[in-house]
């Protein structure tokens, strides 16, 4: 009966006017219920699925906060939807790349993906991670540091103008140099992210073969199916198939229904 009620709630269309606060309250209540029911995975997963559904709706309504991204990712993961969780982590990191909880959550979710242990596929599908200044500093922190460096440099120059003491000018130069370094690193990291984000992220939703062409008739690239949660980058889309490039560089086609495609605006 309990499960039927949850199913009915899941299927019920959400009124457009539904208050965000009540939606959030529903999500939190469902999550709390899932935690209480964790001794029975089947029942608990239904509650977590409901929570994930509500968090997704809030995300769709534009509440893009790192906390919401983390909540929905965890709800998806506990509901047994690993690809959905990975997608939620990525969406959170799009708006808060520096968020350590999201970074760690994504790494943990990736460890749950059943990557093959050996063979060509094992090398091809494990995603690579990179660290830049933007994964360490938030824009606010970077702004605060830049503002401190710039203002102190300006004040040091003024003080030098007052006293003509050369060490002040030297200190101001150091400050400006640090500011320049920070700016260049930030710009470089931004360029890298821009290049990465130019191709939508693809996450395998169903256990699928990677085909050499956009039909089942084409031969498969690997003898094994790719596990759920494998990440790739989309190259093109044609006739219900998506051409992707795996982390190792292998290119192939997935049926569109078997993958989640994310771009800057969220799941497609």
């Amino acid at each position, binding site marked *: 009966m309990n499960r039927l009620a949850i199913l009915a709630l899941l299927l019920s269309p959400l009124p457009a006017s539904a208050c965000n606060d009540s939606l959030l309250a529903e999500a939190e209540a469902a999550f709390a219920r899932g935690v209480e029911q964790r001794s029975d995975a089947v029942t608990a997963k239904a509650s977590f699925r409901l929570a994930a559904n509500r968090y997704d709706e809030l995300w769709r309504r534009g509440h893009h906060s790192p906390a919401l991204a983390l909540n929905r990712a965890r*709800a998806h993961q506990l509901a047994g939807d690993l690809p959905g969780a990975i997608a939620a982590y990525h969406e959170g990191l799009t*708006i808060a790349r520096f968020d350590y909880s999201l970074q760690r959550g994504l790494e943990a979710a990736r460890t749950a993906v059943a990557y093959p242990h050996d063979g060509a596929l094992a090398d091809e599908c494990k995603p690579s991670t990179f660290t830049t200044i933007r994964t360490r500093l938030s824009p606010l922190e970077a702004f605060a540091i830049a503002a401190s460096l710039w203002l102190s440099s300006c004040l040091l120059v003024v003080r030098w103008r007052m006293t003509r003491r050369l060490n002040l000018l030297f200190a101001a130069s150091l400050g400006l140099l640090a500011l320049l370094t920070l700016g260049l690193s930030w710009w470089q990291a931004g360029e890298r992210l821009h290049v990465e984000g130019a191709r939508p992220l693809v996450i395998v939703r169903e256990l699928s073969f990677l085909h050499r062409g956009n039909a089942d008739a084409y031969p498969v690239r690997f003898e094994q199916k790719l596990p759920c949660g494998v990440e790739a980058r989309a190259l093109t889309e044609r006739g219900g198939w998506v051409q992707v490039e795996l982390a190792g560089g292998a290119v192939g086609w997935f049926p569109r229904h078997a993958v989640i495609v994310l771009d800057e605006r969220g799941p497609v």
Partner: protein
Amino acid sequence: MALLSFIALGVAASAQAQDPDYHAQGNPITATWSVDHRELAEDETLLATLTIRGATNPQEIVRPELGTMKAFTDQFRRIENGAESRAGEVSFTYRLQPRDPKTNRLPSLDFPYSRPGESRPTQSTRVKGIDLVVTAAVPKPELKPPPVPMTDPEELFSITTGPQVLRREPFSPSRSTWLALLLAGPLVGLTWFLVWRQLYPDAARRAHLQRTRAARRALETLRHSQDAGIVVLRYLRERFQLPHEAVTPADIESSLQGEKVSAENANAVEEFFRQCDAARFAPVSDSDLSLRDEASVLIARLEARA
């Protein structure tokens, strides 16, 4: 005794005749049904036993195949043969499951047999059926598999709650914010400078003096030099082209007057060098500091009037 034996030839349900296919000798044969219970649910099994007595050839009696008899298949959905015994009397057991609650009887059975010397059965015994009461099956409770606990990492079970979840995207400075910061630096510096000049005009004047190369160098040197007189002399030579042969206070004073320095300032310079001479030949004292201060003031004075 042998005359009393009969030959059992065959068996048939009352509703369906069947050709006999075996022989035996003996007395008139009797056959009976017995059941383990007369009331049962439709999903239970009835254990029925057919017992045949009086046959002289028990080893040759063939078990009646109830599964091929319509009278039985109409009543029972499952008919399985069980154990059999041929010690003295012959018994065959059957496990029967009623077809539905309408099943109400274990059907009768005709059992034909022949007398010794007869090639075809001429006798028959009837196995009387037994009334049964079959009730509907009691619905069994659905067996649920034992619950399996979730074994995900503990940190996944905690979330952030409250209004902060609905905050918008984290702060990201726009172009205008960066532009404002770019302008703020010089503006703050300029403001500080103007305020400083307003509050400390002398310091501002000294700072202005420092902009001339000779004065700036002299003032810098004065901070560390022990001999203020030499520093000022070097400054005068550089700034006012004082001749190198002018080394006495009087010579310096007259040379400066030729360089458009006011008489007042020239006199001040002469007086300063006299004090330097006095200090140089005097016993050890703390006059160095005051001379350095005077030198600074003197340089400022000369720069201001130059």
